């Protein structure tokens, strides 16, 4: 059995490994590394690890690079559970598997817009909040969400915004608004062929509709017509409609200067992220992230228990473990996505970085997507294909 001290060693060695690796940043001084190490050691002592008598196998399905894997291993060993931890890279993959109702996973993480869809299909098991005492650490505004009233089927995992990531060395003036990427006399014209919009039609239509002052989740023909005309005018100036992988590489290499992107992906470029190390030094200083002033779409990922799960007890226990404020904080420090339960425990630099935690004053400007019916999705896809054909 791994003792708590061993886990500390694993985590702390991550920090040290970074220092030895010589990756610069503002923790380059020995005293700062020492204080960070002490901070994490102190934090780790606060983890209240409960162990249970659990069935031996737990299959988890989550996004890639989205958790601290050392903590997962630790929990698994302490509880005598062997975890199969599979990952996916697009929502399409996980929905395709879960909607069969026989995915074989005991726990999955899916985005807000599909929680309701999956629940309506009857492919989710209800979640028993009584078995998740740490649920109390979740701030009120992340409980009882629009897509799952009363948290019957889901518990929030992490959340974020879709805004603009940009190269602060080559782009001037700074990017502040959607207008920058939709108006030719602003950045759009100036950085022709260096700007990308998102490859997901919900995001790109959402951005256009927000810029037009409409409801970003509208499926009205007049709204979508206006949005698609705006996007068609923008298209000749774009480098493309980029997915996570493309814009992360493109921004880092300087091939793209402004990208419509998820905040956490930009955080992943700015900080050197890893699933097994706590790294809170900045690797790249030249990338910034802005939540546009007109507002932005927000998203939330959620734990769900798929139908046919064989180890529902362990799934609840695992959710409870991740919702421990310190575990959440360590996950945030690891992957640079905000885990709401852990906000008070992360270092101030991270807590105040808008690329990780959306600033309080901007929370009012966020729009949530909503689940669409197949017909509504088809209608949007129809406008999307018109844009793709243009």
């Amino acid at each position, binding site marked *: 059995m791994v003792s708590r001290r061993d886990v500390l060693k694993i985590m702390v060695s991550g920090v040290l490994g970074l220092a030895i690796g010589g990756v610069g940043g503002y923790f380059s001084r020995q005293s700062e590394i020492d204080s960070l190490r002490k901070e994490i050691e102190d934090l780790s002592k606060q983890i209240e690890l409960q162990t249970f008598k659990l069935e031996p196998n737990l299959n988890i399905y989550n996004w890639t690079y989205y958790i601290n894997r050392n903590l997962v291993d630790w929990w698994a060993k302490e509880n005598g559970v062997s975890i199969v931890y599979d990952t996916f890279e*697009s929502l*399409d993959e996980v*929905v*395709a598997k879960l909607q069969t109702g026989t995915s074989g996973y005991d726990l999955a993480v899916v985005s807000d817009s599909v929680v309701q869809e999956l629940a309506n299909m009857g492919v989710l098991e209800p979640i028993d909040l009584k078995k998740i005492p740490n649920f109390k650490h979740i701030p009120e505004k992340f409980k009882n969400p629009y897509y799952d009233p009363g948290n019957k089927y889901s518990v929030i995992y992490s959340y974020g915004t879709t805004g603009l990531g940009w190269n602060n060395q080559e782009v001037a003036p700074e990017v502040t608004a959607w207008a920058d990427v939709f108006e030719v006399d602003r950045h759009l014209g100036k950085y022709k*062929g260096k700007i990308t919009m998102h490859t*997901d*039609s919900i995001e790109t239509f959402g951005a256009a509709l927000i810029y037009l002052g409409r409801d970003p989740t509208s499926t009205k023909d007049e709204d979508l017509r206006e949005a698609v005309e705006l996007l068609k005018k923008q*298209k000749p100036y*774009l*480098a*493309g*409609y980029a*997915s996570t992988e493309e814009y992360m590489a493109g921004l880092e*290499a*300087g*091939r793209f200067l402004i990208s419509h992107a998820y905040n956490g992906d930009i955080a992943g470029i700015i900080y050197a992220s890893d699933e097994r190390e706590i790294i809170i030094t900045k690797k790249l200083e030249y990338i910034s992230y802005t939540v546009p002033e007109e507002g932005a779409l927000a998203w939330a990922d959620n734990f769900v228990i798929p139908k046919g799960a064989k180890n529902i007890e362990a799934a609840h226990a695992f959710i409870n473990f991740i919702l421990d404020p310190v575990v959440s904080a360590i996950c945030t420090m690891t992957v640079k996505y905000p885990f709401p339960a852990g906000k008070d425990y992360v270092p101030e630099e991270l807590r105040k970085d808008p690329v990780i935690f959306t600033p309080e004053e901007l929370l009012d400007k966020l729009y949530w997507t909503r689940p669409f019916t*197949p*017909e509504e*999705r*088809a209608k*949007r*896809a*129809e406008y*999307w*294909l*018109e844009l*793709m*054909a*243009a």
Partner: protein
Amino acid sequence: MGFSDTLLKHIRRNVTVKVSLLLIPPLLFLAIWFYAPFFIVGLYSFDMINIQREIVFKPSLIHYLRVLSWTGAMKIFLRSLYFAGVTVILCLLIGYPVAYYISFKMKKYKDLFIILFIIPFWVSFLLRTYAMMSILDERSFLNVLLTSLKLIDSPIRIMYTDTAVILVMVYDYLVMMVLPLYANLEKLDKTLLEAAYTLGASPVKTFLKITLPLSMPGIMAGFLLVFIPAVGEFVIPELVGGPNNYMVGNLIYEFFMGARHWWIGSALSMLFIVFILSLVITYVRKMGERGLAF
């Protein structure tokens, strides 16, 4: 006498029975894993499965009519035909001389050269595409090399353009053109060429009058093997294409996975399959059965 005759017949019949039994596993496999899913796609496309995934016996053409009314879809379809067409022509222009050379001019090491040609295609198609991406990129070693040698002033930008899509498709599908062509040219009766030369035909005339017509089955086979996957390609335009490289495959993917509207996705797939099938049927009609024996 009579007895042994019937026994022999019986065994013979039994052998036929045994041989036809051998056909059952592959047919069963196809039935379960290909025809049944295909049938379900058909049900979806005719609106015969409702949102609760139950079968309803009220066939309707609404999804077909809807899809056919989209001018955008037609444009994307024509674009796919264009990309696949350019790909297949380039593959032919590059592949024919290669197959011709290996088959006609090489004395030794023919097999070795064919194997050398095939080896890159043992590597996963995705890996090859990623490898191409690192060459086409603006900051690739190719661009760095060319700029540092002062051969070009500024890096060439190929990624995210039509050129990139076609280049990668040609690269990925070339072997599908060369192999049937090579197989065809190998079988070509070389004494015919000698006869032509003896009778005083020029090399150009010999090629145009004998080699080219006789290699038509190979060309057609290569054409189908390249054109069909190319026209339905969606990974390459997704990875190396820009905003103007959306193809039919991407469209179908979007409706199945993005919009999760399987009904429209199925109607699109069925229309696409009908198109491909009519191509293949025309080909078989024209070439006869020997056309399939490449």
